[in-house]
C-alpha cells in the first residue's frame, strides 16, 4: 500500500522485476523473457545515450539555448523497455517527457529540440514514425490514443501475431484527469487494442502520489475490467517483458491493458522547477540505489557479456550524440514570421492570409527604414 507523507521507494509484492537493483537476474512466473547478450547491450546503449542527450538538454537550457527542458532522468528503463517492445506498425501517443520512446521510434533527439527552443511544436512526421506529437495538456492523448486504437480494430487490424496495437504514455498526475478515466471506459467497452502505460514517477511537479490516489494505480484497471500490472520501472528487462506481453495481448484482441511503471523522477519536473522546495534529498538518495542503467551495467559485467571496450565505445557514442545535439541546437534557425500563419487550416483561411499579408507588409516597412539608415 502507498501510505505516509512521502513517495515510497517500494513497489510492493506485486511488482514485476526481472533484474534487481544489484544486477541479479530473477525470474517471474508470468513475465519472463530471454534476452541475448547483444540485446541487453543494445538496451544498455539506448539508455546511456538517451540519458546523455537528456543531460545535454538540461545543460542547453541552463546556457540559454533552450527555453525549457523536460528531463527524463531516472525513467530511461521505463521508456526504453516500452519503446523497444513496440513493433514497427504499432502506434505510440506520448506525453511530453517521452524522449526515450521517441528514440526507439527512430526520432533523432535533434527533432525534439525545436519544441523546447521555441522554433516548432514538434518536427517529426507522427504518422510515418508511428509516434504522435508530444501532448502537453495532461491526459488529452489518452483519448486520442484510444480512438486511434478503436480505428485499428474497426479496420480489422487486430486478432493475430501481425495485429496492430497502440500504446499511450502518461504520468501519475494524469491519472486524476477525467480524460484518462474516459479513455479507459472507452477502451474497455470497445475492446480497443491500447496499452495504457503510466509512468508513476511519484511526483506531479510538487504533488506526491498520495495527492492523486489512495490505491496503487495499477489496481484501478480492475474497475474498468482489464488487467493492470505494476512493473519495476527502473528495470528495463521487466518493462520490455511486460510491455511486449501487453502489446501482444492487444494485437491479439485481448486489450486493453494498464501498466504502471513504478519509477522515480530523479530530476526536476522541468528546468523551471525547484524540487528542493517539496521533497527531501534522502528520498533521491534511496532511488539512486535503484538506478536503471547501473543495474544493467553490473549484470553485463557479471555475466561477462560486455567488456570495458564496450562501455567505452558506448560512452564515446553518447558524447558524440551530445556534441551533435549541441551543435544542432545552437545553429537552429528561427523561422520567419510567416510561420505564425502557416498550416492553421487544411484549406487556407482568407482571414489568416489577409492578416499574414498585412503583417508581412508592415514588417517590410521596417526593412525599408533600415535600408534608409533610419533607426
Amino acid at each position: 500500500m502507498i501510505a505516509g507523507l512521502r513517495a515510497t521507494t517500494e513497489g510492493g509484492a506485486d511488482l514485476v522485476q526481472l533484474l534487481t537493483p544489484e544486477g541479479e537476474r530473477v525470474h517471474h512466473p508470468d513475465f519472463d523473457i530471454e534476452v541475448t547478450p547483444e540485446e541487453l547491450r543494445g538496451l544498455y546503449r539506448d539508455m546511456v545515450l538517451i540519458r546523455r542527450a537528456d543531460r545535454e538538454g538540461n545543460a542547453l537550457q541552463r546556457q540559454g539555448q533552450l527555453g525549457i527542458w523536460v528531463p527524463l532522468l531516472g525513467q530511461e528503463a521505463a521508456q526504453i523497455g516500452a519503446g523497444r517492445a513496440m513493433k514497427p506498425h504499432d502506434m505510440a501517443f506520448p506525453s511530453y517527457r517521452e524522449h526515450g520512446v521517441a528514440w526507439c521510434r527512430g526520432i533523432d533527439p535533434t527533432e525534439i529540440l525545436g519544441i523546447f527552443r521555441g522554433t516548432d511544436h514538434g518536427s517529426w512526421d507522427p504518422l510515418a514514425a508511428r509516434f504522435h506529437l508530444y501532448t502537453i495538456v495532461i491526459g488529452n492523448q489518452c483519448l486520442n490514443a484510444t480512438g486511434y486504437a478503436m480505428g485499428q480494430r474497426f479496420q480489422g487490424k487486430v486478432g493475430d501475431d501481425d495485429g496492430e496495437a497502440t500504446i499511450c504514455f502518461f504520468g501519475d498526475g494524469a491519472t486524476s484527469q477525467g480524460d484518462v478515466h474516459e479513455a479507459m471506459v472507452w477502451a474497455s467497452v470497445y475492446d480497443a487494442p491500447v496499452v495504457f502505460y503510466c509512468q508513476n514517477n511519484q511526483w506531479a511537479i510538487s504533488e506526491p502520489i498520495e495527492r492523486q490516489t489512495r490505491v496503487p494505480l495499477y489496481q484501478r484497471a480492475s474497475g474498468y475490467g482489464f488487467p493492470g500490472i505494476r512493473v519495476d520501472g527502473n528495470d528495463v528487462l521487466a518493462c520490455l517483458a511486460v510491455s511486449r506481453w501487453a502489446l501482444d495481448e492487444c494485437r491479439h484482441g485481448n486489450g486493453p491493458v494498464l501498466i504502471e511503471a513504478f519509477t522515480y523522477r530523479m530530476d526536476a519536473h522541468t528546468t523551471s522547477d525547484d524540487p528542493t522546495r517539496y521533497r527531501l534529498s534522502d528520498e533521491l538518495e534511496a532511488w539512486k540505489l535503484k538506478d536503471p542503467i547501473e543495474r544493467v551495467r553490473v549484470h553485463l559485467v557479471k555475466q561477462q557479456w560486455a567488456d570495458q571496450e564496450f562501455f567505452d565505445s558506448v560512452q564515446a557514442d553518447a558524447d558524440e550524440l551530445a556534441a551533435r545535439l549541441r551543435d544542432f541546437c545552437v545553429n537552429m534557425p528561427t523561422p520567419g514570421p510567416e510561420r505564425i500563419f502557416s498550416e492553421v487550416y487544411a484549406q487556407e483561411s482568407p482571414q489568416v492570409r489577409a492578416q499574414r499579408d498585412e503583417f508581412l507588409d508592415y514588417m517590410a516597412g521596417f526593412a525599408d527604414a533600415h535600408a534608409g539608415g533610419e533607426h
Partner: protein
Amino acid sequence: MAAPTVNERAVAPGEGRTPVQTVTMVKALNMGLRAALERDPKVVVMGEDVGKLGGVFRVTDGLQKDFGEQRVLDTPLAESGIIGTAIGLAIRGFRPVCEIQFDGFVFPGFDQIVSQLAKLHFRSQGRIKVPVVVRIPFGGGIGAVEHHSESPESYFAHTAGLRVVACSNPVDAYWMIQQAVESDDPVIFFEPKRRYYEKAQLDTTATPDPLFASRVLRQGGSVTVACYGPMVKTCLEAATAAAEDGVELEVVDLRTLSPLDLGPVIDSVRRTGRLVLASEAPSESSVTAEIAARVQQECFYSLEAPVLRVTGFDTPYPPSKLEEEFLPDLDRVLHAVDRSLAF
C-alpha cells in the same frame, strides 16, 4: 482512391428515392448523413443515443440499422470522450461526425476541441489532418430546462483552427452537413433546434452553394439584416412585415461564422448604409461583435447609422417561461430597423 465528393454522388440521383421531396430539417440532416456514410466508408457517426434511438431529435434515425455498429456508434456518456476518440479515429484516417446532444453539453468536450482538434493541423504543420465534424443542436425556443437552449458559437469562432457553420433551413442542412464531412478541417456544425421541424422542398439533384459562403436570401435597399441559424426565419418574417410599411430589408444568411464570408454583407451595406445584426447569443465578444467591427472598418464612409445588434442578453439563458422575452423576435428586429433608419 479519394472518396467521391458531394457533387460526384456514389448513388445516382433518383435511384431509390425521389429527387424532389418535402422534408423537415431533421430529415434533411438524416439524408445528408446517410449520403455521407454511403459515399465514404471512412465516415463514422458517433455520439450519445445516436444508434438504436436515432438521436434524441431522431437526426440519426435508422443509420445504425443500415450501416452497423462500427459506422454508427452509441458512445459512453462523456463528451470529452466523444471528441477525444474522434480525434484519434481521424488520425487513423476516419472522418468522424460527432453529435453533442445539446449545446450546453459541449463544454466537457471543449478542452479536446480547443487543445487538440483545433491545433493538430498547425502543430504538425499539415502532417495530421483531423476532419472531424461536431454537430451541435443550438439555440432556444423549445421550453427546455437549463443547458438546453444556449448559443455557444462564439467560443468556437474565437478559436483558430476550427471552422464554424450554422444552417438555417432544410435544404442547406442537407448539403452543408455533407460538405462539412468532406472538409479536411474540423467543422463545428450548429443546427437550430427550434427549426428542426420546419419543412422545405429539397431537390437532391441540385448543385449546392459552397459551404463557407454567406448568401443573400432577400434583396432590399433600406437596411441590411445579417443573421444565421434560428434567426434567419425570424428576420425573413421581419422583412415581410417591414415591406408592408415600405421598408425593404436585405436579408443575408451568414451560414459560415468562421471564416466569415462578409463579402455579401459589405456589398449590401455599401448600398443601404445600414446594418442590423441578429443572433440569439449574448452580444459581448460575440460573432455579431466581430462583424460590427469589420463592417465599420470596411464600410466606414458608407454607413448612415451605427451598426445595431439584436441579440440575447449578457445573462445566462433564463428559465424557459422567460425565453420569449430573451430571444430576439420579429418586433425587436423591426425596432432595431426603425432605430437604424432614424439616424
